[in-house]
């Protein structure tokens, strides 16, 4: 009996690790069910200790994660070799934190270097991290080598200046205008920095966390409290 129960418990735990909680919930005997749940917690803890992805157990994803980690670190190292004092934070697995001053030169180098060849800027996101810190994040991608990297630049909300990279990747022209429109980040060297989605005479930077709508816009009252709108 016990062996059967052990088998049931181990099967149920296996299934639950893949996300199917029904296997455990369907066990009728209360004692067995609670034992299965305990075993599940233990198994999850064991996996977390192992420092690996919890879903895919096959080798390709492992090596991909390792490759990605290595690649990110490699790019980080290359940047800090070529442009000393440009990296803002310690080496990271997912992104590279760069200081704003040398950004234009770094961008030009990232695009033209043969081994890296990041010839397309996929997305530029602005983000308000709270406490007066803004960040601009760039997702770069290489169509030749099929690798990608994310670069983040932190600036303060009082003086949000980042060099513009619109000469390097032409797509940054409109992306930076949108980030300027929403966050107020000033891109130095941009040839035509003006609002893109909002009207030119709108006041304020909407996507900042401390944004307050203006009272009226050309005589139209901007509603603040939305009572009864549910």
């Amino acid at each position: 009996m016990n062996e059967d129960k052990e088998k049931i418990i181990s099967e149920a735990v296996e299934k639950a690790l893949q996300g199917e909680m029904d296997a455990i919930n369907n066990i009728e005997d209360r004692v067995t069910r609670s034992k299965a749940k305990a075993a599940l917690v233990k198994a999850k803890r064991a996996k977390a200790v192992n420092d690996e992805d919890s879903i895919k157990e096959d080798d390709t994803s492992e090596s991909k994660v390792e490759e990605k980690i290595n690649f990110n670190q490699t790019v980080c190292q290359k940047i800090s070799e070529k442009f000393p004092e440009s990296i803002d934070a310690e080496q990271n697995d997912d992104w590279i934190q760069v200081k704003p001053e040398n950004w234009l030169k770094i961008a030009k180098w990232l695009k033209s270097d043969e081994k890296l060849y990041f010839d397309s800027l996929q997305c530029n996101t602005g983000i308000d991290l709270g406490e007066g810190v803004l960040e601009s994040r760039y997702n770069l991608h290489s169509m030749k080598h099929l690798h990608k990297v994310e670069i983040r630049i932190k600036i303060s909300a009082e003086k949000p200046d980042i060099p513009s990279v619109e000469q390097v990747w032409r797509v940054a022209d409109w992306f930076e205008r949108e980030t300027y429109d929403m966050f107020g980040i000033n891109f130095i060297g941009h040839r035509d920095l003006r609002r893109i989605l909002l009207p030119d005479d709108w006041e304020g930077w909407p996507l900042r966390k401390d944004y307050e709508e203006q009272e009226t816009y050309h005589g139209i009252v901007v509603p603040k409290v939305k009572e009864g709108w549910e």
Partner: protein
Amino acid sequence: MGVVHGQEMVLNIGPQHPATHGVLRLQVKTDGEIISEITPYMGYLHRCFEKHCENVTYEQVIPFTDRCDYLASMTMNFGYVVAMEQLMEIKVNDRVEYIRVIMAELQRIASHLLGIGAFGLDLGAFTPFLHMLRDRERILDIFEMTCGARLLYNYMWVGGLSHDLPTGFVEATLNFLDYFEPKVDEFENLLGHNKIFVERTADIGTMPAEVAISYGVTGPNLRGSGVKWDLRKDDPYSIYDRFDFNVPVGKGMKGTVGDCWDRFYVRIQEIRESVKIVRQAIDQLPKDGDVHQAMPKKIRPPKGSIYRRTESPRGDLGYYIESDGSDTPYRLKMRSPAFTALSVLNEIGAGWLMSDVLGILGSLDIVLGEIDR
């Protein structure tokens, strides 16, 4: 805009105009009929999508994504759901994956039909538009059978789908595909090989590959310029690696590589490829599986961020999601493909005649809802 010289005239196309695919204002500087500069002004349809998303839960974001590109809602949902599932490390079962692929490919066919039809309409061909809309109605009927909505579906949820397939879905879809496949040849002949259409679109609005990549143009617009880049093959998500399909690329059949005709032709070929994919998916569709199985009770992703791209009918749709561990997103940015496609209009449109510029705008197949969000 700077100084306007003696002969030049500054004209506004839009915001109310039959040919601008939405509410878009193009300010053009013209010298006689030749256009020297185009400046798009957008934002008429801005609905503060990104700010809204910071105040609603992750599930409640999905109807908002529908309304961004209202002509391809399924793929909008798909992109968001793929990004979220990668962030939360959820794996869905096969049935859900296959259904998602079927829906996304049917949506791609519907969106391309409308895009090509509107392109023909801009050039004065009134009839193909109506024929294509008639066939698109059948696809919308299939969608209505599944989830009750014709245009804005809210169908793909994080971890599953909102409804399972109804009975009769497989037959209806196969009937539609059998009816539809010869029609694609008819459309190609009626519009594509028509001498007047070819004269209006070949060698017009040529977009070289480097310009396209630099301006971030993706999707059929990029493939029309000869670059073989399709996210379903080059950066696969979901189960697209199980299907056998080609990626059509513009070859300059009627003019130079990257002209309006090539972009049109790539879309027609993509319709054929999507039909193939749907047939294969229906063949391989698993009979059982619960579509609500992997849906978490409460969506609370771990702290972190992700940027994930999927292939929408207009190009690379990217979602950048930053989560702070609560149940509302901290920052959600949607990288819309039509936004970058519109930015290249000045580059490829300047120097052509007025009628050509409207043709080029039509060949880029933009949707203002996605650009303005």
